[in-house]
């Protein structure tokens, strides 16, 4: 029993490096706190992605047309760039649906009301309306850099689909949402 105890990481840390011991204990504590409350403290992450139970029947996706052609970034090795485009686009759409404001704002305020000790760091935890106003011009600039070509038009639409009896996707409607025309592009 004693050799096993001596081999434990925390025991070795306690004996050899107290700073590392306290960092490790802090990490374990914050990981438990994050799992219990849903409020994480990086780097003590809660690796909960793809752990839900779903059986989706209907779905919708944002489509982006750049210079009148669909942006096709499937199975790219350039995941970071894809995230910068489509993930931010999703955030923009959620903001538009919430009336040009960050839908997280009321949720953060509700959490802060329950835990006032976090109020000092919560002041900038959501986007401002002016951030949304400048988003499409930024996306155009970013795409120009990412695609290495001039971008003169963007069209964002919402593709609605359903899954048939075999669970295969079937397109239903495409609803235009936002457009952006670049002026002065050569």
């Amino acid at each position, binding site marked *: 029993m004693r050799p096993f105890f*001596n081999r434990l990481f925390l025991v070795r840390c306690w004996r*050899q490096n107290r700073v590392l011991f306290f960092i490790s204990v802090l990490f374990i504590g914050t990981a438990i706190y994050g799992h219990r409350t849903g409020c994480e403290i990086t780097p003590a992450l809660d690796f*909960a992605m*793809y*752990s839900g139970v779903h059986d989706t029947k209907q779905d919708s996706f944002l489509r982006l047309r750049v210079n009148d052609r669909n942006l096709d970034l499937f199975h790219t090795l350039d995941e970071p760039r894809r995230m910068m485009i489509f993930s931010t686009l999703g955030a923009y759409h959620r903001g538009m649906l919430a009336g040009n404001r960050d839908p997280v704002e009321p949720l*953060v305020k509700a959490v802060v009301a329950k835990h006032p000790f976090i109020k000092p760091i919560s002041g900038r935890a959501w986007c401002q309306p002016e951030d949304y106003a400048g988003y499409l011009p930024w996306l155009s600039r970013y795409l120009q850099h990412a695609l290495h070509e001039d971008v003169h038009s963007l069209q964002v639409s919402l593709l609605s689909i359903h*899954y048939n009896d075999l669970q295969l996707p079937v397109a239903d409607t495409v609803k235009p949402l936002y457009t952006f025309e670049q002026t002065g592009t050569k």
Partner: protein
Amino acid sequence: MHQPLLFEADFDYTYWLYQASGFAGIFVKTPVGAWIFDAVLGLSTLACWLTRARQRWLVMVSAISWSLYGLTYNSYSCHHNVTMIGIMVLPYAFLARGEKAFGLGWDGFRYFCCYAYADAFVNKAFLGRNIFFLPNGSEFIKTNQAVYMLDHPGAWLTGMYTWFITHPVLAYAGFLSMVLLQGLMVVGFFTKKWDRYLFFIPILFHTINWIFVDVLFYELLILNLTLLPLKERGAGQPLQHAADRSPVGGADKKDIAQRPLVKFSEHPQVIAKG
């Protein structure tokens, strides 16, 4: 990033602190600030390579820069990509003074690597309990590949996805295998002898994920380095394979043996002899 505007702090206090600090206002939203940050990140990392991380202040600058880089990317890509976490934390291992402290810290990051996959397993098996839900196999394929399948009806990948979606039991078997692969990383908490095999689990896991759900998590593989054998050279001793030792248990015993005898006199057997 071209001075991005939208960000996501989510419900993560670290990201709230990052936004509250004002760092983004200077080093993300202004071109000059962004150039300065890129230069500090690149040069400090290069300097660490050139000096073999002997200058601790350089290591500290580089480590903090990588943490800020991860926070910035995750904030302004509006998604907290857990795949960035390796590069955000691993550089701090090189702050250790001496080989022994480094070994202990490196061990800590090895546990962190195992934790990442083991926690994902626990979430699926015990908290979310979705490994007991048969439709989940085809669910993750269809919701992640729907647009690809509609845009590329003749592609061989579409054919493969269609086959798995229409055979939900096989899709579930695949999903279950993936979850169990993550669960195997729990072994790493108890022994290092299997590290040479555990090393390949994340590679296999992320490759299959990329093919089936189009999620590329290869950046997380930097934590895999902690599963490679760490060779140490003691004074006048040959190189030793880490996996041949008990998990640093040998060093502990050595430490105990080197302690002053007074410590041992407290041992009941020693007292009995006395």
